[in-house]
């Protein structure tokens, strides 16, 4: 018993050691993929929801690859032969391999669920619904682990069945699709009989088929493994029968031509074509299925698997280039015979590149047919150029991976993941970093150049660190070149100079801290509606009630503390400011409608008085956004008081203090400068940005990618701060502000419209040409929009008129 336990422990130890690198490799690449995705591909909800799918890929990849590691690799390296020469029970050996493979799958699923949990907990996909975990086109969450176990069993079967790891991996693909194929056939039959199978029943049937197939294939794999580990049966050779057949059989033509190829390259291409014909045929079938389904089958969850098989085929075609013959011994044979690395490289690549081209041509032909038969097939296909570049990228990265990762099994697992990451990176570079197409094409070719560059060392069987360094020569530019134009663009984006920053920070620090309290503009709670009582009110009584409830300065807003003296700095949010100005305008209109109405006049005067206090409080605020609110209130007061007859009819003291406020140009400039400086120095965090500046900067600079905006926003803001302060200085000195407003237009609006049509244009300045209409929305969106506009000149003139008898 103890001996048996020790044997099992030894076998389990060995299998765990063999499978551990695969788990570590997959988790590392999966982690990188998830990190890269969460960093680069969260712009749209569709892409963001895919983040949940990524961890699910890892157990599936593991399930497909683990048998190749535990069985095919042992066959290729002949360690299985050595192992069976010691007295190991075949059943014990088979079961230990299966147990470790299954335990590894459980570990992978645990890691997968942990990753999904972390993704959910991180809040990256908050509010983004995804069918990945709950349901996926009717397949319950339980199906993913079940199908991965099925794939593992398929892998076990093919690994014991085939000698070559590559062939065994390819053979998994049709077996893995078996449950879906059965389900599709059932669906076809039932539809032919005009009967409907509910989705839930389809799910149950698929699960049942998978469970049955898992059991059946597991039994087959076990029997096959037992047979392989038992003494090999002697081939059945019936000499007499053979002799009879031979008599009728034409002489076997020799497959070797009498004359050799004229060029070494031809010989190498012949070798590449023949060294693993079964694997090559399988890869071709995968590509054909993928391309055909992508062009002819409408996309759905089930049908999406087929194009993925095609992409996997392209990736494995790349792996086939350097690992197709299962080992490097073939190349060493050629290297020992002095074959030139470049010719050998071309000999290896010629078949792969030709087949990629064939795949693209097939896609082109089928797309042409699809486009001409839209009434029969409605499939949206991408452009041929895109497909060609995508295929070439996957192939290029995969062949590089197969040169760097020497073990066929590991290369076949790693290459598709690396291709996926590379595709993601270049897509991100093309869309988000605005990398030009020619640069992306150059990057696609880089892995090919790298493998060519490393060819001499690879041929010599160089396993040292230098080989990997040479291989990385291609990887580093692949990662950094697409970033270069973006980096240059960001570096050239406008910003405040460092010297200016120092000077302004010093100025900001010298501003004395005020002890004024903060007063937040608020709407007073309205008296609760009593529907029964209100319904009984009619006429003037009802009107008075509603006016009292919503339009009165004293009732609607909490202005009372402002009346006690200038001890508050006022914070005003846009929607409340809008309400204030609307109520005041209502009071103005009510008085204009009834000039003799004393109550209306008093109400308006009350508004003027409170707005004067409000504007003064806003000017005391250290928030830039409140200066915009101050502008809005002062514009309203200036527009009202610029009319001589209006001023004459209103209380002189109230008018006088209002005019004194709006005419105080130096005070206004000082307030603006102070607020800009304080806001800039205090708005370090996102929360403080909203508190102090609160301008919607998400559109500043015009249309640009989210990534560029992320990298340039703080620079743009600093440039806007700089321009605004220069605008204050220029306006205070009576200089023309248009050049600086043009600068602000460029920084904030960008090239999406001309200056004359933009918010800083002369024709949209309040007071210009008698236009006094303005929008608080614009004031809150475009900083310094109405600074030193004609309304300020009108305001200053009002003071002069006040002093003139």
């Amino acid at each position, binding site marked *: 018993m103890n001996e048996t336990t020790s*044997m099992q422990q030894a076998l389990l130890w060995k299998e765990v*050691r063999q499978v551990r690198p695969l788990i570590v490799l997959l988790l590392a690449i999966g982690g990188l993929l998830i990190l890269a995705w969460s960093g680069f591909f969260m712009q749209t909800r569709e892409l963001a929801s895919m983040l949940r799918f990524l961890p699910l890929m890892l157990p599936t990849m593991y399930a497909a690859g683990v048998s190749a590691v535990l069985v095919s690799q042992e066959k290729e390296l*002949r360690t299985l032969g050595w192992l069976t*020469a010691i007295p190991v*029970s075949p059943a014990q050996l088979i079961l230990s391999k299966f147990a470790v493979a299954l335990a590894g799958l459980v570990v992978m699923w645990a890691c997968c669920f942990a990753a999904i949990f972390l993704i959910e907990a991180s809040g990256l996909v908050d509010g983004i619904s995804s069918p990945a975990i709950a349901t996926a086109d009717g397949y319950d969450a339980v199906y993913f682990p079940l199908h991965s176990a099925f794939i593992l069993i398929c892998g076990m079967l093919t690994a014991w069945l085939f000698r070559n790891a590559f062939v065994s991996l390819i053979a998994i693909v049709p077996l893995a699709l078996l449950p879906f194929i059965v389900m599709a056939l059932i669906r076809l039959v039932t539809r032919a009989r005009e009967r409907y199978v509910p989705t839930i029943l389809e799910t149950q049937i698929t699960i049942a088929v998978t469970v049955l197939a898992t059991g059946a294939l597991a039994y087959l794999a076990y029997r096959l493994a037992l047979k392989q580990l038992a003494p090999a*049966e002697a081939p059945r*050779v019936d000499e007499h029968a053979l002799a009879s057949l031979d008599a009728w059989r034409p002489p076997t033509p020799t497959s070797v031509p009498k004359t050799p190829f004229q060029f070494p390259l031809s010989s190498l291409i012949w070798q590449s074509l023949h060294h693993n014909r079964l694997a090559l045929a399988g890869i071709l079938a995968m590509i054909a299925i993928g391309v055909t389904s992508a062009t002819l089958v409408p996309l759905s969850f089930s049908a999406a698997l087929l194009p993925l098989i095609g992409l996997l085929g392209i990736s494995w075609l790349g792996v086939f280039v350097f690992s197709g013959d299962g080992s490097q011994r073939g190349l060493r044979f050629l290297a020992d015979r002095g074959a030139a690395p470049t010719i050998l490289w071309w000999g290896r690549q010629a078949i792969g590149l030709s087949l990629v081209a064939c795949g693209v041509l097939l896609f082109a032909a089928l797309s042409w047919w699809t486009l001409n038969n839209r009434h029969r097939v409605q499939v949206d296909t991408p452009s041929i150029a895109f497909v060609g570049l995508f295929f070439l990228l996957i192939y290029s990265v995969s062949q590089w991976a197969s040169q760097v990762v020497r073990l066929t099994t590991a290369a076949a697992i790693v290459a598709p993941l690396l291709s996926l990451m590379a595709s993601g990176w270049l897509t991100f570079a093309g869309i988000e970093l605005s990398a030009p197409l020619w640069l992306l094409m150059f990057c696609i070719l880089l892995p090919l150049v790298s493998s060519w560059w490393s060819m001499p060392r690879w041929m010599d069987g160089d396993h040292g660190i230098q080989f990997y360094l040479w291989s990385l020569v291609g990887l580093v530019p692949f990662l950094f070149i697409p970033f270069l134009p973006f980096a240059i663009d960001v570096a050239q984006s406008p910003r405040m100079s460092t010297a200016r920053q120092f000077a302004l920070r010093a100025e900001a620090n010298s501003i004395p801290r005020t002890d004024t309290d903060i007063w937040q503009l608020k709407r007073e709670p309205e008296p609760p509606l009593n529907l029964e009582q209100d319904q009984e009110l009619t006429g003037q009584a009802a009107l008075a009630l509603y006016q009292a409830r919503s339009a009165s300065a004293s009732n609607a807003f909490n202005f009372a503390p402002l009346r006690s003296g200038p001890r508050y700095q006022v914070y005003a949010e846009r929607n409340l400011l809008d309400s204030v100005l609307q109520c005041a305008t209502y009071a103005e209109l009510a008085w204009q409608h009834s000039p003799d109405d004393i109550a209306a006049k008093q109400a308006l005067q009350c508004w003027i008085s409170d707005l004067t206090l409000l504007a003064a409080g806003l000017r005391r605020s250290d928030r830039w956004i409140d200066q915009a609110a101050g502008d809005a209130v002062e514009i309203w007061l200036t527009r009202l008081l610029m009319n001589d007859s209006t001023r004459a009819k209103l209380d002189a003291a109230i008018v006088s203090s209002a005019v004194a406020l709006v005419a105080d140009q130096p005070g206004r400039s000082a307030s603006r400068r102070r607020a800009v400086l304080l806001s800039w120095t205090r708005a370090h965090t996102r929360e403080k940005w909203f508190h102090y500046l609160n301008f919607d900067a998400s559109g500043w600079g015009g249309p640009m990618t989210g990534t560029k905006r992320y990298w340039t926003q703080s620079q743009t803001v600093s440039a806007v701060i700089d321009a605004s302060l220069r605008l204050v200085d220029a306006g205070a000195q009576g200089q023309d502000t248009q050049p600086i407003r043009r600068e602000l237009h460029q920084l904030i609006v960008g090239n999406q419209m001309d200056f004359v049509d933009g918010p800083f244009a002369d024709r949209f300045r309040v007071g210009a040409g008698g236009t006094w209409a303005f929008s608080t929305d614009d004031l809150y969106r475009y900083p310094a929009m109405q600074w030193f506009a004609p309304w300020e000149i009108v305001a200053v003139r009002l003071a002069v008129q006040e002093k003139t008898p």
Partner: protein
Amino acid sequence: MNPVITASGLTMHYRGCQALRGIDLQIAPGTVFALLGENGAGKTTLIRILTGFQKPTSGQVRVCELDPTQQPLAVRRRIGYVSDAPAMYDWMTVAEIGWFVAPFYPAGFLDRYRESVLRYELADDRKLKHLSKGQRAKVALSLALAHDPELLILDEPTSGLDPMVRREFLESMIDRAASGRTVFLSSHQISEVERVADTIAILHHGKLRLLAPLVDLKDSVTEVSVSLEDPLVALPLLPGSAEMLSEQTYGRLRRLVVRGYDSEMHDLLAAHQGVTSVRERSMSLEEIFIVCTKGGLTNSPELVEAGAIDE
């Protein structure tokens, strides 16, 4: 005492190839048995059948009184086997591979393995992939010998070993045989085999051409050079006790390699009409091997002397 290996009528047919054609052999315990044969003679096929990796097309085989086709596991417990290029797990260290294999054998395996590794001066913590070919061969030998097997089957055992270790190893094989264990080795190194083997078998095209104790073999095989007056002279048939291994004609010189040759046969040949002289020479194992596999010696000193061929 029962033979350690018994094979009778052993045949192995592959498509288009007859690897073994009726092998009959018995190997007694306590002997060093050497199997010689050129490439493709069927040596590896025979070893695969003996170790339970392959079932023969026909015939019976027993190893340590067990049928390897039916009880391969039991056979492998009792034998030690080293192939010509053992593919061990190269990610394991020298110590790890011994620890890994130990549970499959009786107690004491690990201690003996460690002793052996120490004797070969192999570092415990070195990974196998960092060992030279010779060092790997030492590890493989240590693993095969650590359970003190009744029968040790070795395929090209000294390949890759340096001369000192080779000598030491071969001497240890003699010691094993002296202690009652049996060694079955397949080799191309005829000089080494000659030094250690008790029994020699020469396999050619799937057939055992010779199977005899080394001492008897050397004494029993004689090269006979017969000078003739006319190349067309027909020699008399030798008695049934003699086995003609080879007969070649070089002009008026005829060379025979005969097993079981005696003085009566000399007289018979010398007295035959047309025979001018008869000379005999005993042969080395290498010459016997060449005769058995190539059908004759092309550079025999007799022929050179007679001017039949260039030196």
